[in-house]
């Protein structure tokens, strides 16, 4: 009997829906791996004897560096905000998230403009002290270390968001127990607080590292040899698309490894939020010197990740805005906004579907399929976009052949030539972001809660409404926000797949910047940041309202 039951659960409607959804979303990533079956011996000999070691080492250093730095910045910030009460805390809560709205390549452009050898800072140093090139040491922004800092400055909010929730949800009883046992606060931090928050912190770091692996704009501008720059060099320069896809497959394998590590570290400490109204930790009011330096520490990442670059952009934009603020510009703004809105809603709906499917059917095939789709986040946008273009065009050609044979009309490129292609790629690429948030949220709903409700005679929809919706609200909102901001900043796929006469702010900013017209790129870049801020503020407001201890905040 049991076997038959299990067999049925395999083929229920959930499984079919999810499997189908996953396969469509995973197709672009899957195409990358198909390349492995077409060996390119000659080109790999060339690559491995010349540039491949550089690609591997640099990509690894970049991702690990970013991982470490975002853990440090994100955790410290989350701790300060979750546990201390100080002047400006309320404002900092959302200020800290602002760098999220800043595309990494834009921050790289602005800092290069400031810190480069020919930039204002080094020039005034030389003028003041009458130095020449070689007379003094100044760290080179366009280096691996520079790229790690640039990416970390805009990626730390991933860790902060997750860690902050983890910190503020730990009941104060833990602290009381430690204190009553004579455990000093510092030991409590390292023995209790951090281990409990570890899954959240590592999850945030994993997301940031995946972004670092997939980054193209920054490393390309800094002239670094990484996997992503290597993929394009092999594809465009050497004219070998298959070898390029193989490089992408290799990069993706690194990410698989990363995700397995993250999963293993989480599996050891599987626990569910206890659900009962635990007494939340009261934030400690800071006095004396602490009241000064804690806010100072919290402001620093915001200053370097947002305020300073925005000031630079404002300065540039003030010189160029008059000829750029046309009706066409507002159209760009609107395009960017609605595209990001549609894509984030789609991705979150899919993530909810998959997350519940996984929960109701905790079987291997589904978990595997969802895992494959999650990989999309680490594959460079261009690679996924090309994968989608090839598969959708193939579909379109088949459809057209069919309609021509049957109805003697051709319907044109309905999928590859429309916004559908873009939405598919965004969903495929950013589903991981949504999934991570939804999974975290869902892990807070103990399975025993469902059982209890069911035993009380609640219908599934009632359970959803009365138990899941309230507990999941914050996670769904943060998933929406993160995907929205990611799509807003997304560049390569938009560039490749957009239909005729359709532009976004990111495309405009990139076109101007890549043409080395940084000043003209400043206005669209600022607009991306401004549109990105709106949901950030909205989210913090909603998070505040829905958090169980909101009475403390207001």
């Amino acid at each position, binding site marked *: 009997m049991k076997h038959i039951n299990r067999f049925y659960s395999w083929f229920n409607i959930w499984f079919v829906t999810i499997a189908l959804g996953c396969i469509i979303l995973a197709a672009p990533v899957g195409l990358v791996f198909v390349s492995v079956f077409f060996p390119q011996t000659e080109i790999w000999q060339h690559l491995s004897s010349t540039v491949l070691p550089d690609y591997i080492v640099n990509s690894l250093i970049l991702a690990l560096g970013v991982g470490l730095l975002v853990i440090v910045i994100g955790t410290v910030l989350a701790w300060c905000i979750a546990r201390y009460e100080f002047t400006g805390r309320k404002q900092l809560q959302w200020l800290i998230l602002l760098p999220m709205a800043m595309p990494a390549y834009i921050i790289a452009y602005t800092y290069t403009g400031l810190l480069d050898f020919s930039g204002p800072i080094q*020039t005034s140093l030389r003028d003041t002290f009458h130095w020449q090139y070689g007379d003094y040491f100044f760290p080179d922004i366009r280096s691996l270390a520079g790229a790690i800092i640039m990416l970390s400055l805009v990626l730390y909010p991933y860790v902060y968001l997750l860690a902050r929730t983890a910190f503020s949800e730990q009941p104060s009883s833990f602290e009381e127990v430690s204190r009553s046992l004579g455990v000093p606060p510092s030991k409590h931090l390292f023995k209790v607080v951090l281990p409990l928050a570890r899954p959240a912190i590592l999850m945030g770091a994993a997301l940031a590292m995946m972004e670092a692996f997939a980054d193209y704009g920054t490393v390309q501008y*800094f002239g670094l040899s990484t996997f992503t720059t290597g993929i394009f060099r092999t594809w465009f*320069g050497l004219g070998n698309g298959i070898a390029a896809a193989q490089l992408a497959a290799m990069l993706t394998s690194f990410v698989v490894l990363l995700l397995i590590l993250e999963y293993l570290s989480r599996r050891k400490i599987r626990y569910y939020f206890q659900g009962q109204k635990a007494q939340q930790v009261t934030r400690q009011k800071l006095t004396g010197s602490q009241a000064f330096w804690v806010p100072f520490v919290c402001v620093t990442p915001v200053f370097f990740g947002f305020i300073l670059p925005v000031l630079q952009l404002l300065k540039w934009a003030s010189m160029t805005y008059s000829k750029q603020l046309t009706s066409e510009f507002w159209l760009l703004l609107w395009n960017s906004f609605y595209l990001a809105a549609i894509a984030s809603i789609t991705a979150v709906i899919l993530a909810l579907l998959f997350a519940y499917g996984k929960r109701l059917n905790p079987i291997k095939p589904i978990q595997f399929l969802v895992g494959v789709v999650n990989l999309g986040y680490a594959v460079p946008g261009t690679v996924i976009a090309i994968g989608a273009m090839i598969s959708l*065009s193939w579909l379109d050609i088949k459809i057209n052949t069919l309609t021509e044979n049957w109805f003697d009309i051709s319907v044109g490129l309905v999928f590859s*030539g429309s916004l559908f292609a873009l939405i598919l790629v965004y969903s495929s690429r950013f589903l991981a972001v949504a999934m991570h948030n939804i999974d975290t949220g869902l892990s807070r709903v103990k399975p025993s809660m469902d059982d209890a409700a069911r035993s009380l005679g609640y219908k599934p929809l009632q359970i959803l409404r009365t138990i899941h919706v309230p507990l999941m609200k914050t996670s769904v909102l943060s998933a929406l926000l993160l995907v929205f901001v990611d799509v807003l900043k997304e560049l390569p796929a938009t560039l490749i797949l957009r239909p005729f006469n359709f532009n976004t702010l990111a495309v405009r900013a990139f076109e101007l910047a890549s043409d080395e017209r940084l000043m003209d790129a400043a206005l669209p870049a600022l607009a991306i940041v401004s549109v990105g801020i709106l949901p950030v503020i909205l989210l913090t407001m909603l998070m505040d309202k829905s958090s169980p201890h909101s009475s403390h905040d207001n």
Partner: protein
Amino acid sequence: MAEQVNLYSARKEALIKPLLDKFTQQTGISVNLITGNADNLITRLKSEGKYSPADLLLTTDVGRLHRAKQQGLTQAISVSAAIATVPNNFRDEQGHWLGLSLRARPMMVSVDKVDAQSIANLEDLISAEWKGRVCIRSSSNIYNQSMVASLIVQLGESAAQEWVNGLVNNFARQPQGGDRDQIKALAAGLCDVAIANTYYLAGMLSSKDETTQQQAKKVKVIWPNQAGRGAHINISGVSLAQYAPNKNAAIKLIDFLLSKESQLWYATTNHEYPVLPDIAWSELLQSFGTFKAEQVALGKLGELNAAAVKMMDRAGWK
């Protein structure tokens, strides 16, 4: 339905749209535009097959046009009166592509530190005298790839490799940034000689930003190999897509892009050299001086692109 033409353009929107708008005004033919990286556009064209809506492919590098032709994505453009005025070496033999503007890639020196007479040829750059003094961007960039490919055509494989090795040996720093960054580094004294496309220098000279202008003024163009093979050039050009649904309108657009008005616009707005010999240069372009250009069969550059990249990989040119 009103006449229209669909354009896949590797030239950025800001650098082509104003011209297209003028075309629409004059002819009533509307132009639909997708911009993007040339290779991506070619992949799109290829995967769309015979249902592709594209009429024209516009690129800023001849190698890409050649690549599209080799993949069978283009067709011969019937020679109109306007097209006949384009010099033969800027047109494909079978008429699959033709040039719309010229882009030159000479040497540039810092006027404060270098005597313009002290350097005449690209080959000079690899002598010990220039060790630690040369700035150039990454070899991932298509301009460098085309330049090295043209050296392979003209000097042969081993001499070209020797030149690339020698150049890398004389770098002032690891390649980084774009062409403008090389010019800025020159102005700031980080290096003494650089290789960059002229329209970047021209763009800086006509910039609204005072600092940028000052930087550009410290730089002088040196036309290399004037006694020999000439300076390296490339073209921006156009191909007619194999399955172009609006062929007539597409040809009209090509004719328009070769009109005197458009050619002047290229020169004054984008600071590129007109492809037609009888169009007067802007004052800014004249200030760089006239030059003798290479006479390479441009299609060759596309064929040798991979060889050039491998050569630069072997030399350690990042």
